[in-house]
């Protein structure tokens, strides 16, 4: 209770310092303790106006390769918000000056994020019809952001990412021939270098806030970087994010052809189908290395829950997806 009162006081002074407004904080509650962030919900009331807010604080955990700091994550999300991308508005950033871990406060947006419900529940049937176009438009707007203004975003070409993944994977000392074949495949199929654009990096079902009308908010800008726009298209099509709706490759809710057409219309960037396929293979391998990362953190005792250990056993799903992708199987 006192911890929560202390956090509320710190939020009041951080808000005053950055926004010059006096607020009352109420209904403060911890929502989740994620791998790398602690999330809280609270209400900020100022002059009779009540605002539902979300506070995300750095949780001290190790992040996967090249995750952004909370401050840079907030700057990217805010730039996207101002450019008209549907994403929660960032109200303020917090940090050591406020006696808090690095983090930020954003406006609460109502909606569903659970992938299984979004791709399966009757409630979201009409949302699924408009999601491919809405996602294409959101990605087009993200890829049109001024990459120079967001110069702090790391440049992550295909070459850089292959090197980082190989280093991390080999660090675990586990010989996985399918992963090794995937590194060979990726090195042989690297797309031509492109103009670096702002890439969300984790644009997928599960990180999209959805209601009956479709996309309400793009979340989790932690893996944003500069790179190839086709990377975001490939990542959205990973079988791992289809939540069982395998026949619909775009997020478990859409067909490729229509999605690519919407994207081209909205962005003016031609879709390079071979490059999207490359990024789908790279993304699948990346998810596999993330599964290894979870299981090895659990094996080293850095985290205690059972789930990360079980995630390690999802690597065989990843292996099958890679083999299917090499052979061009599946929608």
């Amino acid at each position, binding site marked *: 209770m006192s911890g929560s009162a202390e956090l509320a006081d710190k939020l009041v002074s951080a808000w005053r310092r950055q926004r010059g407004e006096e607020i009352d904080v109420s209904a403060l509650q911890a929502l989740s303790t994620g791998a790398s962030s602690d999330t809280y919900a609270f209400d900020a009331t100022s002059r009779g106006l009540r605002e539902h807010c979300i506070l995300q604080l750095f949780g001290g955990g190790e992040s996967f390769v090249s995750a952004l700091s909370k401050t840079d994550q907030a700057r990217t999300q805010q730039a996207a918000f101002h450019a008209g991308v549907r994403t929660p508005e960032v109200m303020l950033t917090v940090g050591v000056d406020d006696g808090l871990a690095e983090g930020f406060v954003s406006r609460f947006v109502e909606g569903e994020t659970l992938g299984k419900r979004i791709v399966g529940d009757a409630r979201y049937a009409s949302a699924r019809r408009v999601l491919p176009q809405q996602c294409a438009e959101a990605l087009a707007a993200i890829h049109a952001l001024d990459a120079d203004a967001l110069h702090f975003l790391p440049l992550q070409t295909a070459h850089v990412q292959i090197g980082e993944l190989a280093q991390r994977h080999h660090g675990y000392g586990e010989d996985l021939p399918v992963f*090794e074949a995937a590194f*060979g495949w990726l090195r042989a199929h690297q797309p031509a270098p492109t103009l670096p654009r702002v890439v969300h990096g984790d644009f997928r079902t599960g990180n999209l806030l959805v209601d009956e009308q479709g996309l309400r908010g793009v979340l989790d800008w932690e893996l944003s970087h500069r790179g190839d726009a086709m990377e975001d298209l490939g990542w959205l099509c990973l079988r791992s994010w289809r939540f069982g709706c395998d026949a619909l490759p775009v997020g478990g809710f859409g067909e490729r052809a229509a999605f690519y057409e919407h994207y081209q219309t909205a962005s003016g960037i031609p879709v390079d189908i071979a490059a999207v396929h490359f990024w789908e293979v790279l993304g699948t391998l990346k998810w596999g290395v993330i599964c290894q990362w979870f299981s090895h953190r659990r094996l080293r005792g850095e985290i205690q829950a059972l789930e990360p250990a079980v995630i390690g056993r999802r690597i*065989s*799903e990843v292996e*099958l997806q890679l083999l299917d992708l*090499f052979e061009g199987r599946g929608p």
Partner: protein
Amino acid sequence: MFSNRPHRNELSAALRESLVALIPQLEGKQRFELRVALNAFDIIERETVSAGAAAESERMRLVQLLDRDGTLVELRRELCLRLRDGRQRHDAPELLSALRAGVLARLAFDNPGFKPFYRDGDPA
């Protein structure tokens, strides 16, 4: 059977029934964690039944692919080395079919519901 009854498989079936009976009594995070635990238990049970034969089949496939003998660990290491230095092509059909057979055997205990995408000409 060396053990008195219930035998190992009977005891594990009884344990599983008790855990499943707990599900409706829990909600939220605890319920989720019990489901994760049941999934882990099922993986272990399936693996106990099939892993020995799967490992020997995998070893034989690698013996044939690499044209040398060794333990499964040694052969996997050798294959990875050859893939890295290019002595084994990453897209050779005999490599891909050997890898696919091994992955399907592993999925049979890790997640038997996860199926490959079929295409014309595949065995049913």
